[in-house]
């Protein structure tokens, strides 16, 4: 029997795209609709929300009642394959540093389960160094990206309201849903202490947008992915429509190993392993577009060493893997006694909050340089595993229907207690901007490979005082809001300096960015302002890797806008034969 051989795909494509999430899906969509022949490589299996979503399943349809597993850390019904750990695909850490790395393996990637929070970056978010002297300015400004935000608002749909806020730009919004009861409590309480609460901005269709997609029917389960395509996922709204053009060959279960280059140093294609037959393949393209996630794209580049690119591809600047940063995150929750024994009705609403708080303060007057927004939760959620855990912490503390009971208990009295407290919980989560630093990075671990023989990433990231002080401020704010609404803090209220005020480990908020950043200077950036590698003109990176900084705004909408902008540029340059 012959040894391992590499099979070359005979077809030469205009573009080989690695990854089918927001960035890769958008690139495939734009290129395919412009008539370009695209090979779309996805490391996981096919996934079509119309067929594969767990939407509208009951808790008892799951043997574990929706509890999480290593395959679905956000619960058995969640719409994302894999998460923090993947069998046979390790990652390592420098010393005692932490980075929690979420990896989706499926068509559409993690957009199948994301929170649909679709915030535009504001004008200040592109020019932070000019404002506070930290990090770097982007090579582009809001005016460069605004036309693309406008296009994706129209094309993909997002609800919200135009508030005329300076750094939270208006958009082309569908109508938002009305606030739920606990959200009215939050709005009243926060507004009373000077904290604004406005309708959230989520890419969920409250109005019909085209004949391919249905309207939201308010099941609150966007996280499971939507059978009627009522919310944005790259699978349902980009990849599947792109495939319908006939110009996209999707290769699933294809784990990219390396970007191939020629003697001139140009990219020629991708080498990958098929998980289906464990054979090695190569596919060629006029251009190569990386959208494998910020860290996977960096890993691919660092693993693509050649004579022309001895430090890894697109890495003569040595910035690939550096400036890795996640959103900051800290949370707190409580219970609202006024909501005990609530009248029952269906308040599922859309999948996520109906209101949120954009950043409202001036950092010049604070001891941390960047802002955060606040997300809210609460109300009558679908009972799933973990529901009603720890009743002894509640039922001895509050009078129930006028009676003081002993904590704990059993029997008919206990059943009364569970009913009494249902729907009275509320929670809030801060999501903020940290500083992208050169020393916060991932590199290739010299000693470890994954089960495909691909060298793995080693992470070396730490929070600085800027992020820790921001988390402290979050916690103080949450406590004030909860106090103002007459709520009692039930979790997240005991954090101190010793645990960074409850600041989540980096990576945990799943907004990885910065590892292949753009800039005008090839000495300090990997990509130019068109997401194109300085060192390799037919190589692009259109995921979170290209971000210089990530604002306190969830990054998906900006990945989409940047990818659309880069992809239209690629089409233009190809038509001019510049690529």
């Amino acid at each position: 029997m012959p040894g391992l051989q590499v099979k070359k795909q005979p077809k030469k494509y205009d573009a080989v795209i690695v990854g089918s999430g927001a960035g890769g899906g958008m690139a495939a969509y734009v290129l395919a609709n412009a008539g370009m022949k695209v090979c779309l490589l996805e490391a996981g299996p096919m996934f079509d929300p119309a067929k594969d979503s767990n939407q509208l399943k009951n808790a008892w349809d799951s043997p574990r009642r929706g509890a999480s597993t290593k395959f679905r850390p956000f619960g058995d019904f969640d719409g994302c394959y894999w998460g923090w750990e993947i069998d046979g695909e390790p990652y390592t850490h420098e010393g005692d540093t932490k980075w929690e790395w979420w990896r989706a393996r499926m068509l559409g990637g993690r957009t199948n389960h994301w929170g649909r929070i679709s915030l535009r970056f504001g004008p200040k978010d592109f020019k932070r160094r000019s404002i506070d002297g930290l990090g770097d300015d982007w090579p582009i400004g809001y005016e460069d990206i605004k036309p693309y935000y406008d296009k994706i608002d129209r094309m993909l749909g997002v609800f919200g309201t135009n508030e005329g806020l300076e750094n939270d730009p208006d958009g082309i919004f569908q109508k938002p849903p009305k606030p739920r009861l606990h959200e009215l409590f939050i709005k009243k309480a926060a507004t009373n202490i000077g904290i604004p609460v406005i309708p959230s901005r989520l890419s969920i269709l409250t109005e019909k947008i085209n004949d391919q997609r249905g309207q939201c029917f308010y099941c609150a389960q966007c996280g499971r992915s939507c059978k009627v395509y009522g919310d944005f996922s790259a699978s349902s709204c980009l990849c599947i429509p792109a495939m319908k053009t006939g110009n996209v060959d999707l290769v699933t279960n294809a784990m990219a190993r390396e970007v191939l280059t020629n003697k001139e140093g140009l990219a020629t294609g991708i080498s990958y392993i098929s998980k289906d037959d464990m054979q090695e393949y190569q596919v060629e393209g006029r251009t190569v577009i990386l959208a494998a996630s910020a860290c996977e794209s960096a890993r691919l580049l660092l693993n693509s060493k050649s004579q022309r690119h001895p430090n890894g591809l697109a890495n003569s600047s040595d910035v690939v893997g550096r400036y890795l940063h996640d959103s900051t995150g800290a949370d707190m929750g409580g219970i609202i006694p006024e909501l005990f024994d609530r009248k029952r009705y269906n308040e599922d609403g859309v999948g996520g909050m109906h209101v949120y708080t954009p950043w409202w303060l001036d950092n010049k007057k604070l001891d941390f340089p960047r802002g955060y927004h606040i997300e809210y939760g609460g109300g009558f959620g679908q009972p799933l595993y973990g529901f009603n855990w720890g009743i002894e912490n509640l039922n001895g503390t509050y009078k129930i229907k006028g009676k003081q009971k002993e904590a704990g208990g059993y029997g008919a009295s206990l059943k009364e207690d569970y009913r009494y407290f249902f729907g009275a919980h509320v929670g809030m989560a801060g999501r903020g901007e940290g500083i992208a630093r050169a020393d916060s990075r991932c590199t290739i671990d010299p000693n470890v490979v994954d089960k495909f023989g691909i060298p793995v990433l080693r992470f070396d990231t730490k929070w600085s005082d800027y992020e820790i002080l921001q988390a402290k401020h979050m916690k103080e704010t949450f406590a004030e809001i909860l106090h103002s609404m007459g709520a009692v803090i039930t979790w997240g209220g005991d954090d101190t300096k010793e645990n960074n005020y409850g600041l989540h480990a980096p990576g945990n908020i799943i907004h990885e960015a910065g590892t292949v950043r753009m800039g005008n200077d090839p000495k300090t950036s990997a990509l130019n302002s068109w997401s194109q590698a300085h060192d390799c003109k037919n190589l692009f990176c259109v995921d979170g890797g290209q971000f210089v900084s990530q604002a306190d705004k969830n990054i998906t909408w900006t990945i989409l806008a940047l990818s659309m902008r880069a992809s239209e540029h690629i089409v233009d340059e190809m038509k001019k034969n510049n690529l």
Partner: protein
Amino acid sequence: MDRRKSLKTIAIGTFGAGVLAEACKTEPKKADTTPVAANTTDAINRMPEEKLAQEKFDSAGKFFTDAEMATITVLCDIIIPKDDVSGSASDAKVPEFIQYIVNEMTEHQTPLKGGLRWLDLKCINLYGKAFVDCTQAQQIEMVDQIAYPKKAKPEMAQGVAFFTLLRDLTATGFYTSEIGTADVGYMGNKPNQWNGVPDDVLKQYGLSYSEKELKECVNYDKA
């Protein structure tokens, strides 16, 4: 990508399950190897690796013996009995749920198995019989000593930890069943049109939507 928010944690509420300090170390050999979930219809979309793992869980032997399951069933029905709103824990097949979930959440195995033995030994010392063989009055007398963490005697602390965990598992199993979900009054998980908080509820809390909200938000004609 931020789906974490607080919702999951909110649903869970506050944690309070203690750790049983004196758990039974020598576990008896598993006698029954009948698949624990042979009749479970798993209706969830799963990737191939998940399907393999699920088959393993489903074909795993039963962790609890029949005698232990009998005790669990009595305790579950003491915790969640039939009342004028809904059925009991065993009506909702909570004991079967517990038998399944310990195969997956193995951290519950020793606290439960050890706790069951602790309970039987206490009952034998006090009443001369294992828990299931005690009279109903004796069972309740025993449960009263471990069901209230704040007033329980220190020498009952291990029993309190056991009962607290069993109460949590029973409640979570019951309220995630069809019977329990109806009991607690969760009315969602079905297609509908969200038209805001009902008027009578707004009135009850002295709240109203602002003109801005009424103008800007989605409105559906009320049927």
